[in-house]
């Protein structure tokens, strides 16, 4: 049993906060809530809305038709034709089933316009047949505005005289964790031993900067002049011994490229949080997409190895952040945590805790007098040491073991081949980190990566004979594992939030297998799970 609520209004009317209050109430009562956030690139005016899918079973996505809706503000009328047959819409708009006049109600209680949303939330609880006490309790998080919001909610509840569609559930007790991708990455980084987060503001990566700037843990969030300054300082700080993560979206990542290449030759460990939005260029700043995947895989000029990890939900993001730090420090590489707006800014509910597969360390050696910054080794991995205790060198130039510049043919080959051996070592390491996951059973296979996981997992439950292969490591690519899954299937399609289906090209590059069937979406919106189930059914017909 499940239902879906849309809360829509003008930016600045407290839409996101209303959604959070309702979500947390239901989660605290044992429900599972998925909270999708849709907003434009504006601070006031224009439309914002949140979609809450609420269920007694785990849910990881939403769809586009609603059982309940709060519609206020002049931009929300397009939701009117997205109501289910017995759906109830409440609000100030012409055409809603239960028209309310919150501005009159707040006048009666002598409150400010800002609590109009609380009036409508109270009405919503009446329409859902839910206890108003639960909402009022949740409003305690409003701080000094608690009281007035609670009064407004009660008043809305009492005033509502529209239809009631009472929701009855038998929810199972147990732990519930309510978390967005941004929060999971932030706490995951702290849990993984991060010292510094360096960034320049860019949607949708910015929430991580905000979160880490506020935490009480002994870490620092630092905003520098631009993304070139950010990644350069990140490499400098890591060279000096700090555990560093930098963060950005596509445009900022483009600026970082010359220094990502510097990472490749200097072999200084660093983690980069790359949160995609649709491009090219400014694109659609506050919406979602996976179109930067090939750009990230091929980032940085020159030939060198890197790690690109694509978590599928916040729990995975938390776990995989530890792997990003572990691999970066152990193999002196760049680890990219590749996410997108949908994963970063949606809230998910889980009933269990993640466990780290690895334990990141700084991986520093005690420097002896004969320490070599780029020691030639069998596995290509040179021990890491830092300045301050002895001589340590880092360089953008081709170099010898000491880190001194070389241009002689033989010496160049020795160092290039050392880095090539490291690529192989890294491949073996990633094999142990569950680079793929298979969900469901069936002869038909859909393949995807990243934030599409939620809608796919929810969609295949509605389908017969269909399983889902999730690829979590895009680089090094788990070629054998992916090849095996494809060869064991009768029909295969890829699913991607992009216009071209880049994962198909990546699979062909690494396995030689071509997948022609592509389910794509490129309007800045994530897949709805029902929408996706229909598309998969159609594709495999």
């Amino acid at each position, binding site marked *: 049993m499940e239902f879906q609520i849309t809360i829509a209004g003008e930016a600045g009317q407290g839409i996101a906060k209303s959604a959070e209050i309702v979500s947390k109430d239901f989660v605290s009562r044992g429900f599972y809530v998925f909270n999708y956030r849709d907003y434009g690139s504006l601070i006031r005016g224009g439309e914002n809305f949140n979609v809450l899918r609420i269920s007694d079973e785990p849910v990881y996505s939403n769809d586009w038709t609603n059982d309940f809706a709060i519609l206020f503000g002049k931009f929300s009328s397009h939701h009117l034709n997205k109501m289910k047959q017995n759906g109830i819409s409440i609000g100030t708009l012409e055409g809603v089933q239960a028209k309310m006049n919150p501005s009159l109600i707040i006048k009666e209680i002598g409150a400010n316009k800002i609590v109009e949303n609380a009036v409508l939330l109270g009405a919503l609880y009446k329409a859902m047949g839910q206890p108003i006490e639960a909402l009022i309790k949740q409003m305690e998080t409003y701080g000094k505005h608690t009281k007035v919001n609670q009064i407004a909610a009660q008043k809305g509840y009492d005033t509502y005289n529209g239809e009631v569609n009472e929701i009855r559930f038998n929810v199972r007790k147990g732990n519930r964790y309510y978390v967005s991708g941004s929060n999971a990455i932030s*706490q995951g980084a702290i849990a993984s031993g991060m*010292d*510094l987060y*360096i960034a320049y503001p860019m949607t949708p990566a910015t929430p991580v900067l905000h979160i880490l700037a506020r935490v009480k843990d002994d870490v620092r969030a630092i905003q520098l002049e631009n993304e070139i300054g950010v990644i350069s300082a990140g490499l400098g700080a890591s060279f000096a011994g700090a555990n560093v993560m930098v963060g950005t979206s596509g445009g900022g990542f483009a600026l970082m490229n010359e220094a990502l290449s510097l990472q490749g030759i200097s072999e200084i460990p660093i983690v980069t949080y790359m949160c995609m939005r649709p491009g090219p260029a400014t694109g659609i700043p506050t919406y979602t997409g996976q179109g930067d995947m090939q750009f990230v895989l091929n980032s940085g000029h020159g030939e060198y190895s890197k790690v690109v990890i694509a978590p599928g939900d916040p729990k995975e993001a938390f776990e995989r952040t530890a792997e990003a730090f572990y691999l970066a420090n152990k193999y002196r590489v760049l680890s990219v945590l590749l996410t997108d707006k949908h994963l970063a800014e949606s809230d998910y509910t889980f009933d269990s805790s993640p466990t780290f597969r690895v334990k990141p360390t700084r991986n520093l050696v005690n420097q002896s007098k004969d320490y070599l910054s780029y020691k030639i080794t069998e596995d290509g991995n040179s021990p890491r040491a*830092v300045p*301050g205790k002895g001589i340590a060198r880092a360089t953008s130039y081709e170099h010898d073991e000491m880190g001194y510049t070389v241009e002689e043919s033989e010496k160049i080959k020795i160092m290039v081949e050392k880095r090539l051996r490291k690529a192989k070592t890294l491949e073996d390491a990633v094999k142990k980190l569950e680079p793929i996951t298979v969900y469901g059973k069936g002869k038909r296979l859909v393949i995807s990566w990243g934030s599409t996981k939620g809608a796919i997992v929810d969609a295949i439950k509605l389908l017969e004979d269909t399983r889902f292969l999730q690829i979590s490591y895009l680089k090094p690519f788990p070629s054998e594992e992916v090849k095996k899954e494809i060869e064991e299937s009768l029909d295969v399609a890829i699913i991607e939030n992009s216009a071209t289906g880049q994962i198909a090209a990546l699979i062909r590059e690494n396995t030689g297998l071509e997948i022609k069937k592509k389910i794509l979406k490129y309007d800045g919106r994530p897949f709805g799970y029902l929408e996706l189930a229909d598309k998969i059914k159609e594709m495999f017909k």
Partner: protein
Amino acid sequence: MINLNTSEQNTWCPGCHNFVILSCAKKAVSELINEGHAKHEDFVTVTGIGCHAKLYDYINTSGFYGLHGRAIPTANGITLGNPKLKVMTFAGDGDVYAEGISHFINAARVNPNYALFVNNNKIFALTTGQVTPTSEKGFPGRSTPKGNPFTPMNPVSLALEAGASFVAREYSLDVKNLTETMKAAIKHKGFAYVDIIQPCITFHNFTEYVKDKMYRLNGPFEYKKAMEKAKEWDYSDSADAKIPVGIFYEEERPTLSDLFDNKNWSEAYPERKINSALWERFKV
């Protein structure tokens, strides 16, 4: 006695002023070690890309041979990772005043704790002779055969305007004063900028021009006077120019790493506690 020499083959042009700058840098480091100001292993030489950057290979300290224009942000990071390190950042005029100018202005503002030495030969030398932002108008660079159409910028007054806490100019052949100013810059707490006038003997030899026009300042001065002095020479080739050298300005204020509590992270936490229990923070 610490040996600051390396056995790398030097590839500067014979007679290049960089030899003098390198020797002054080694002298400064060596004296600071002997005076107990810092230990050999505390020094890090950071460079950009250009002729100046070869210095990385020729001085036996820890080092970071960075990217063109990016020596400044790289050094910013080093001081954030371990504020105890003594960072000497070298850059060229094309390097820092063209490619890296935004980093220069912002570094002056946020005051990272290191010395920035700009080997300013008013030319791109390693790319064989194109004009930079400090080349004089009319100079026939290889990309401007009819003469540089642009007037030069004055990086010294710019640094003052942007808030640099230590601003100086020296001449590459003045061993005594260059060494002393380098030492003062390394000892300064904050962003210590020294523009080193360094004629390029191959592509832009203005030795004769600057030789008789330089005079020594008895600074540092208060801000307004420092700015007046900084504006005395506009980096042009005007015949009646007077070129002040020495320290223009010095003040002490919190550094970038002060603002983030001066943590030497790998020393504060040799290993961090890895704690997946932080997930519990999301419990509702």
